[in-house]
């Protein structure tokens, strides 16, 4: 539990990468909606973070689920079978950060050119 007024969400959960699908299923059963999926590059710790935001359509409750993976092998299972809306968010996170969502049906660039092989939001990206 975190302070909503200070941070903007109610519950902050850190899970192992193999538990993100279980977390999504749990929130799905409780009626939560998918807000966004986001990446973050913690280059100093040599880690990548994937952040899943959820909101509830009827209650004032914001849940943030986080997971961290090594930068050398950034792989997380996809949650797009639980939340189809995650499909695009994961494609975006993949192209910006190079994080691979295992089992994703179509992990092609969404916003970048179709032949893009670079990941612009990585902290070591040089244009």
């Amino acid at each position, binding site marked *: 539990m975190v302070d909503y*007024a*200070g*941070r*903007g*969400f109610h519950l902050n959960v850190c899970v192992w990468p193999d538990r993100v699908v279980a977390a999504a299923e749990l929130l799905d059963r409780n*009626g*939560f*909606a*998918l*807000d*966004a999926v*986001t990446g*973050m590059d913690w280059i100093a710790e040599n880690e990548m973070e994937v*952040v899943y*935001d959820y*909101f509830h*359509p*009827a*209650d*004032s409750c*914001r849940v*943030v689920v986080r997971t961290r993976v090594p930068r050398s092998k950034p792989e997380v299972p996809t949650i797009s079978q639980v*939340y*189809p*809306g995650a*499909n*695009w968010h994961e494609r975006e996170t993949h192209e*910006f950060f190079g994080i691979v969502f295992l089992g994703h049906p179509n992990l092609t*660039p*969404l*916003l*970048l*050119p179709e032949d893009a092989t670079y990941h*612009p*939001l990585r902290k070591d990206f040089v244009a």
Partner: protein
Amino acid sequence: MSAPEVIPASDKPCETFVLNVGPQHPATHGVLRLKLTMDGEYIMRAEPVCGYIHRMHEKMGENRTWAQFLPNTGRIDYLAAMAYNHAYVAAVERAAKIAVPPRAEYIRVITTELNRISSHLVWFGAFLLDLGGFTPLLYAFDDREQILDMLEAVTGSRLTYCYYRFGGVCNDVDADFIRGCRDFVARLRPRLKMYRTLVTDNIILRKRLEGIGFISQEMCRKYGATGPVIRGSGVAYDVRKIEPYSVYREFDFDIPTFPEGDCMARYLVRMEEMAQSLRIIEQAVDKLPDGPVLSSGVPRVLKPPAGDYCFAVEAARGRFLVRIVSDNKEIPYRVRLRTPCFSNLSLFEEATAGMMLPDALAVLGSLDLVIPDIDR
């Protein structure tokens, strides 16, 4: 001569073809491309292709100071720039613990609601243009012009506003603006009634929109669709009520919902929302407190404490969330912009499967997309 055999739409087609819509097409309102796999006039699969106007605002956030990113926020959804200004400044205020004077909060609410109306008026005109009615656009832009003039007088710009500052707004409103607000409320109310009789009750429009493009509550939840889309499916989800921010708690207003989930429901939600925004503006102008409009204690060089902060607002098209990550430096570590149109468009493929092409374009219009908001 025997009659040609008619193939029912449910049968497996003998032949399909791909129809390309856009990226330059009047119905896409910007540079969006739709790749439609068609079975005759029926859509089998509609795949939106995005990214034609991608500008990488999130990366720009990482190479300029907290304040220098402010103008970017007005250029994501250019039709509802105020709400985007609001989410970003409020996220930074939350991080740096900056208090905002009450007068500034009221001005923020008034200007955001005026901007919401002007955005809905553009949608109203453009949507009817999509459906083949040209006249309403001219009426809508006439009303919108009044708002643009008023906002230009206080903010200095007509579209891509950059009016809010950390700790308030950059310019106080004057008596002319207050009078303008009151006049505008008095002007738009009868105009909305006229739109009702002129457009909403028109049988041609009703036939075109009723029962077309059903989107269920469940689909909205799974795709994270918000704003008039989720409210047109009967869910009273509005960030202004569910996570009340600024001074929205102090106003009496309703969240219009329509349970039908079709294009008409989404249309009616937006029309009703304009009336609700007028109520908010009226109350806010009456209650507008005196005092400063900018907090005096804001440091020139801002270094918010390290951490991860979110702020969500109800923009004209739905929930807009800003996540900022600070590492206690002058520039943000990460700025994440979760935009409503992105999620609203992502359900398009599922919602339009099996639909006829002109109906799918009506659905596209009823989602009220702003393409720079999707592509960022």
